[in-house]
């Protein structure tokens, strides 16, 4: 982990002059965030493309080098991107195009905003490095990204579904091939929701806290023994 950074007062390191509401921003080619050029200099091959869309600098990076890039952005005194605003994924409507995983980073002292993108081919298993070790806020966001898109984050401490319940059979809702009303009929969806066994309400470590193995009925214990994950 990086050394602890002193109390962060926004704008302390930013160039002088109070920021103003941006007006008539060009669609492409606006003023670029200086971090983009610094990134290109630091990680030459990893930075594939830099473009400025509606005034926001977007850097497309190589998936394998992502973790070092984010670590460098977080630790480097010249960048200090200490606020991870969002981790999400985008799947386009034409099936050929790869899924993009997007990180929105913000540097409070330098008042800068940067968007990192990584493209994951749909043919290969969707996996990318987790940035949980750098930003603790990524924990739940990555779990939600896994829950909604099926993208596994390598290195995440506890990658489980966070919004749907653990034994949700219908797949990953935000994928474009997932129908809006779900795959099963309404009655089947309701039956599956109501038919969850009681231990589905508790994660494995909660069961171990209470040493509740004894008072679980026999069939539930086999299910747990077979390694069926529980918990919501």
């Amino acid at each position, binding site marked *: 982990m990086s050394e602890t950074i002193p109390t962060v007062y926004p704008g302390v390191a930013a160039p002088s002059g109070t920021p103003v509401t941006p007006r008539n921003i060009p669609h492409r080619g606006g003023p670029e965030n200086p971090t983009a050029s610094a990134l290109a200099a630091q990680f030459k091959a990893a930075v594939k493309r830099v473009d400025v869309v509606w005034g926001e600098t977007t850097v497309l990076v190589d998936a394998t080098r992502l973790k070092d890039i984010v670590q460098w952005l977080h630790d480097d005194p010249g960048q200090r991107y200490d606020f991870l605003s969002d981790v999400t994924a985008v799947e386009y409507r034409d099936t050929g195009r790869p899924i993009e995983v997007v990180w929105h980073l913000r540097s409070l002292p330098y008042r800068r905003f940067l968007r990192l993108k990584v493209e994951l081919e749909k043919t290969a298993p969707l996996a990318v490095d987790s940035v949980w070790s750098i930003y603790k806020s990524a924990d739940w966001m990555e779990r939600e990204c896994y829950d909604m898109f099926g993208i596994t984050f390598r290195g995440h401490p506890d990658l489980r579904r966070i919004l749907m319940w653990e034994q949700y059979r219908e797949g990953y809702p935000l994928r474009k091939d997932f129908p809006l009303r779900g795959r099963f009929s309404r009655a089947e969806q309701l039956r599956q929701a109501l038919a969850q066994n*009681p*231990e589905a*309400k*508790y994660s494995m470590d*909660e*069961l171990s*806290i*209470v*040493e*509740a193995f004894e*008072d679980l009925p026999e069939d539930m214990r086999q299910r747990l023994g077979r390694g069926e994950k529980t918990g919501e």
Partner: protein
Amino acid sequence: MASSFFPVLLLIGFVAVNAVAMIGLSHLSLRLRPTPEKDTAYESGIPPLGDARERFSVKFYMVAMLFIVFDIETVFMIPWGVAFRQLSCTVPLVSGVCPSGHATLFGLGEMLVFIAILLAGLVYVWKKGALQWD
């Protein structure tokens, strides 16, 4: 003297009748419709796990005991308060008031001794660390 017990008996009788009537009537008019879910414990809508009969740490029990000791102490103050005038008056009261010149501080002294004893108990408990919570 005997007649003065009638209101007390009346009160006890009324309380007993009231209690029995409430429980009895509701028991008679009630119609139980048990279902498996209705009998399980309510834990915010989630099936409970583990039983509540856990071993609690001993500090809860000790605080309860200390509370009872000092609560009874205040209970004993009530009869003392009622009879305070009689205690601190060497001659029988005249229409509820002690004739002047005969009032002594015997009643007060008696209660202070009682409290001093319990205070010693409190100091002992305090030094022993029973009140030490965490």
